[in-house]
């Protein structure tokens, strides 16, 4: 985790290899295991580890790390990345939780319809979604026209080309990633727990605060982690919806690679991002494990 050579996505793979076979199934010989894993290992080696290895070697050329870390734009875009990702994650998880609860409380038919609505943005290209938001949020767009038409505002609000717009676009893209893990956590709750709580004297608010919410913490943290990691890699959205001050690290990598043709610098930036995210994820999981006595039990 702490080595630059170990990227984030390698963690689940190693975990799966090292894991014990599920209990209750007959233990297979080791060779069978390797055989079953072979396609994944080959795939990873060719398409993941090799390019990463190239990135690592490239990044060591021309004092790339020292150079990029001295670039004020790099530092700025790093900070932007974490600020925008944190805010987007927070908004996505909160809205995703509400959506998941609404879906969970409905009957089977409404569930299917609502899930389809949640999945709709999933099936739409990110560029399409971003431009749709740009149309909605521009000075003479739907939102501003409506606000002025209703007499709520006098002139157009600056809704586009700023951080707000970037976060709106990102949350829209990220919502399904939060709704599904949270819904899964809600669906796993035994219905009778709620009945029991109510029979024991709990009202709606108490049932939610004391039973539902604590039991969905694992789902919420899984959603948060997933959404945050995806957030840090956003590239198109800051370009389409953001202003000059909202560029994220992916834009900076693009700038180094294509405008400056400084591949060493671009590689160093990519690995720095991977490193920082890895450290944050590790810290996050440690905090969760320390706090989640329910899981430890």
């Amino acid at each position: 985790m702490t080595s630059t050579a170990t990227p984030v996505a390698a963690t689940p793979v190693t975990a799966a290899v090292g894991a014990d076979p599920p209990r209750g199934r007959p233990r297979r010989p080791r060779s069978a295991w390797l055989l079953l894993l072979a396609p994944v290992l080959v795939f990873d080696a060719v398409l993941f580890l090799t390019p990463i290895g190239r990135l690592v070697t490239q990044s060591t050329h021309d004092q790339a790390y020292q150079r990029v870390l001295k670039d004020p734009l790099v530092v700025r875009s790093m900070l932007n990345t974490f600020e925008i990702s944190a805010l987007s994650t927070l908004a996505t998880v909160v809205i995703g939780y509400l959506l998941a609860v609404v879906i969970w409380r409905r009957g089977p038919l409404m569930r299917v319809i609502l899930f389809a609505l949640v999945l709709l943005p999933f099936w739409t290209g990110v560029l399409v979604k971003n431009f749709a938001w740009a149309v909605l949020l521009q000075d003479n767009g739907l939102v501003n026209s409506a606000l002025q038409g209703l007499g709520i505002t006098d002139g157009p609000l600056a809704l586009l080309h700023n951080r707000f717009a970037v976060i709106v676009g990102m949350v829209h893209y990220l919502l399904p990633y939060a709704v599904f893990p949270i819904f899964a956590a809600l669906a796993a709750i035994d219905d009778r727990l709620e009945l029991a709580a109510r029979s024991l004297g709990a009202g709606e608010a108490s049932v939610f605060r004391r039973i539902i919410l604590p039991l969905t913490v694992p789902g919420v943290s899984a959603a948060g982690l997933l959404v945050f990691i995806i957030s840090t890699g956003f590239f198109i959205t800051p370009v389409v919806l953001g202003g000059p001050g909202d560029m994220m690290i992916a834009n900076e990598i693009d700038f180094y690679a294509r405008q400056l043709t400084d591949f060493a610098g671009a590689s160093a930036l990519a690995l720095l991002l991977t490193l920082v995210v890895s450290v944050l994820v590790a810290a996050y999981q440690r905090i969760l494990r320390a706090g989640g006595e329910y899981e430890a039990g």
Partner: protein
Amino acid sequence: MKSPTPTPTTTPSTPAAAAGDERRGSIELRRVRKTYGNLAAVDDLDLTVRPGEFVTLLGPSGSGKTTTMMMVAGFEELTSGTVLIDGKPVDRLPPKDRNLGVVFQSYALFPHMSAAQNVEFPLRMRGVRAGERRKRAEEALARVGLAGLGDRRPRQMSGGQQQRVALARALVFNPAALLLDEPMAALDKRLREQMQDEVKTLQRALGISVLFVTHDQDEAMSMSDRIVVMRDGRIVQEGAPEDVYAHPRTDWVANFLGDTNLLPCKVLERKDGVAVVDLGSWGVGRVRDLGARGDTYAVSIRPEHLRFVDAERTENRATGRVLSSTSLGATIRHRLRVGEKDIVMRELSAGTRAGRGPDDEVSVGWTQDEAQLLVLEP
């Protein structure tokens, strides 16, 4: 979150005192109906659980027993009729204000709380202070034999222990009555019997009324003061366990509550609780009669109520042939053919006369009180 209702829980008799103490702990259902579309899950049910009484709703799945319990608890709305607890109508009260201790089949313990926190939960909801809460939870856990195990999580406990936690949690706030929904179904046989004894002992000691739901006739027999047999949303028979067992009104009840031999018969005469019946090849006999009316009748004789008799005895006797005898340990089960009818009889292994083998000619007899005239359901 504090409960908005200031229900006094530390003094259990206070709320009932206003309504008259004699109905404290009673549950009454009056003409209760629950329909789903055209289907009546519960149909005009009248039922009273008297204070301190242990009443069991016994029936197969789909008989409406769980729906009935859910309506008492407030989880299901009534289509019509009314439910009274402590003599007061509760139809407009949400479950949290009904003050009933409910134990579910799966126990429904909160997995993210310790046993003690689970038991404290209803007290917390009633705004009981932390110190008092802890003390009462400890007492409740001790009462169900779990002293010192309050720190465990439900998943660290055995099925029997979890069941006890659920019981402690349902009792700790001194509810008006206990509702138990198949609470033993997940336990193995030995543990189930032990828990049946313990629950029964606890219920007697606390003098609390219990509405118990089960499909297990042994459980119903061993625990109840009164059994209410349900089928298709209706009560088909109710009474003390021994009475319902010994004197079923219909063949369905007789079969549902244990094994029986049903002998179709013609009623010749009915008078003063005794019927004279023509049993065909079994001859004419005298049996008990509860006065149930129907189109076709049969006589029910439990296997253990048949015994081998000497051929000379005249009344209530039939002669047949042994088909097989199987030892079940404590009892022996004989299959006999009497006339065209195969019947089963059971006798204790101890005191059995040896040497009765297949194809032996035997005479079996029964006493008038042990044979029951009943209506054959169409």
